[in-house]
């Protein structure tokens, strides 16, 4: 599907305040509409998906229905619903051609119907934006974490987080720019546990060669694509010789195919120590599931907290975007104090994935300008603004940007 680049923006004078595209590009629009219809009625709707992954990017789902994408939205618990409402608000304001199919998942239910419906919806649409679904650990072990179920059923094997120091946010360390690629489906999160005798519990950590090769390959490919120089594998192979040893071996194997990228490895406890003293030394990091959890939370804390960093869960066929640290934020829910930055940046990542780069750039630059220039900050980064104030500021900046680009023509 070719990118329809809007020739100009104009502010509609009718009561609806929204950025609309000019009449010029409508013929292009129609062509796309027919084109996408052919794709839908040609081979089965998911023809683009399911193909073997070539060395290029993941192919985004074709836009059906008039060039508009349909994205599954799972509000989740805590601050998820309100943040996703703000995302919808911002998208409506900027006329992003994305429709959301909202699927609610009730975390208190023991039956898995809700999450199954959500998974089916994501299979249908290919892309999702979600809040975190709470997992109460007072439930019995048979009740699996909903988020984990989603990740494993859709085989979203790579969790990608990009932690960057923002100039407008006060932190102890500066100049951090780390990409973390975490294996998202196996490792310690296999949820395979049993009580051999009363009082003795075993939990299995599974490491497979195929998944380790796959995640290492993804990490190196991403590093090359983004022009990164170094990939560090994080492990504990001195103690878990077979498990993490296999992971490390797979990384080394893949590294040999990328001579332009430096590969080294570091033990996880040393890694956390280095991260709090000299985080600037890290570039790209790849690691199994649990260490990924620890390292991504440490890095998110270093750049300013859970409200700033977006994350992507990517598989061969599907992509689910959420905040990097996956917090439910129960204590600040519905108080208008949550930081919308992480969720909005995640939605920009989603727009980039759908190849709607212009919209993504517009929203992202408005967010970063709010953060760095106008300094409208929520409480978690030391400011006094409310969530809605921040969102209003972002929308104001977007309008200003579009006015400027309209004036240029």
């Amino acid at each position: 599907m070719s990118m329809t680049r809007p020739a100009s923006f104009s502010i509609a004078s009718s009561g609806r305040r929204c950025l609309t595209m000019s009449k010029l590009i409508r013929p292009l629009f129609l062509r796309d509409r027919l084109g996408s219809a052919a794709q839908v009625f040609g081979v089965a709707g998911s023809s683009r998906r399911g193909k073997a992954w070539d060395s290029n990017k993941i192919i985004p789902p074709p836009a059906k229905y008039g060039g508009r994408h349909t994205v599954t939205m799972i509000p989740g618990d805590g601050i998820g619903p309100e943040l996703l409402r703000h995302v919808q608000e911002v998208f409506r304001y900027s006329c992003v051609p994305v429709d959301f199919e909202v699927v609610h998942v009730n975390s208190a239910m023991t039956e898995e119907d809700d999450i199954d419906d959500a998974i089916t919806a994501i299979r249908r649409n290919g892309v999702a934006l979600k809040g975190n679904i709470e997992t109460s650990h007072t439930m019995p072990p048979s009740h699996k974490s909903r988020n984990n179920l989603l990740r494993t059923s859709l085989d979203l094997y790579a969790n990608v987080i990009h932690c960057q120091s923002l100039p407008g946010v006060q932190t102890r360390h500066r100049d951090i720019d780390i990409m973390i690629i975490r294996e998202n489906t196996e490792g310690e999160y296999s949820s395979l546990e049993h009580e051999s005798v009363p009082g003795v519990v075993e939990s299995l950590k599974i490491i497979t060669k195929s998944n380790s090769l796959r995640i290492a390959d993804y990490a190196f490919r991403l590093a090359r694509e983004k022009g990164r120089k170094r990939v560090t594998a994080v492990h504990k192979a001195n103690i878990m010789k077979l498990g993490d040893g296999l992971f490390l071996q797979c990384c080394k194997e893949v590294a040999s195919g990328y001579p332009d990228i430096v590969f080294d490895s570091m033990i996880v406890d040393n890694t956390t120590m280095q991260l709090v003293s000299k985080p600037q030394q890290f570039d790209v990091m790849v690691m199994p599931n649990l260490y990924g959890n620890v390292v991504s939370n440490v890095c998110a804390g270093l750049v300013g907290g859970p409200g700033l960093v977006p994350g992507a869960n990517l598989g061969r066929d599907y992509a689910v975007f959420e905040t990097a640290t996956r917090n439910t934020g129960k204590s600040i829910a519905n108080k208008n104090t949550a930081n919308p930055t992480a969720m909005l940046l995640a939605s920009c990542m989603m727009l980039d994935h759908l190849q709607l780069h212009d919209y993504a750039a517009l929203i992202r630059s408005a967010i970063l300008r709010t953060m760095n220039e106008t300094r409208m900050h929520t409480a978690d980064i030391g400011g006094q603004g409310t969530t809605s104030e921040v969102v209003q500021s972002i929308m104001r900046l977007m309008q200003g940007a579009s006015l400027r680009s309209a004036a240029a023509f």
Partner: protein
Amino acid sequence: MAGNAWRSTVSRVLGAVKNQTSVTRGFAGGIQTVTIIPGDGIGPEISDAVIKIFDSAQVPIHWEERNVTAIKGPGGKWMIPPEAKESMDKSKIGLKGPLKTPIAAGHPSMNLLLRKTFDLYANVRPCVSIEGYKTPYTDVDLVTIRENTEGEYSGIEHVIVDGVVQSIKLITENASQRIAQFAFEYARNNQRSTVTAVHKANIMRMSDGLFLRKCRDVAENYKDIKFTEMYLDTVCLNMVQDPTSFDVLVMPNLYGDILSDLCAGLIGGLGVTPSGNIGANGVAIFESVHGTAPDIAGKDLANPTALLLSAVMMLRHMGLHDHAKKIEKACYDTIESETVRTKDLGGNAKCSEFTNEICRRVQDQD
């Protein structure tokens, strides 16, 4: 001096019920024996430094030096030399320098051997910001207590089929009970207000769930101490943003490994962090957790701070609080003065100069 000894004896006798873990052995005002294991690399020189400082502070300790190397005992099992084991069993207190683990030596690491021999089930690492050594984090004052025998480090791994490896994480009721009990006792004895259990029970429902249940059960008996639970990722996130919000943390093996090193990084690294291992039968071994640094061994460049602070921890465990305070103050003051610092702390003094300066400050305090 005699008054102090009498007071400490009385408190030992009367306070035995209250302070079970802080005082283990000792006769009225007498000299206690401590087994010292210098270790490899920079081990011998930093051990000498500590002995020298303790002499100048006139600490009533008799040092018994022992070496540990892995030897094959009857039945083919690897073990530590019997003299070392005997000495340790008698004295119950040990101070250990860094031990090297040669790769492909055929025997497990020395640290692991010691752990198994004396059933050292709790690893305690107090992380306190050093006033004289500035890091981006100030006012850190927390203690990590890590279960040291099971969990993810049980060493049970196998290749199921080619390309699929399974590692078993073992959590038992007894070990969880024991470490929780120790954590609350430690908190009570050291006037700590909060104990936080770190877990991932949302994912590992059964194993971490069992650990958490045991912590909750033990918390029932310690109503004077606040008990909270927190996910591992939330702890990591909050630790790097605001470490002052944590007090005592208790957790299984792997999380403990990661978090204790994270906290060591907050205060300045392994070169300034003390550590203690508590075992069953009242054995306690205090150690420095840094490496053997073979590149600077024998050159009088090493920094004895980590081993010294571990020795101070040992003094507190033995009930010799006055001596502990004196030596600790001298150490902190020396680092703060910035005139005599070893290379890793940013200065260029020699190890002997640093040691002498601390000795001088200790004697000045008398």
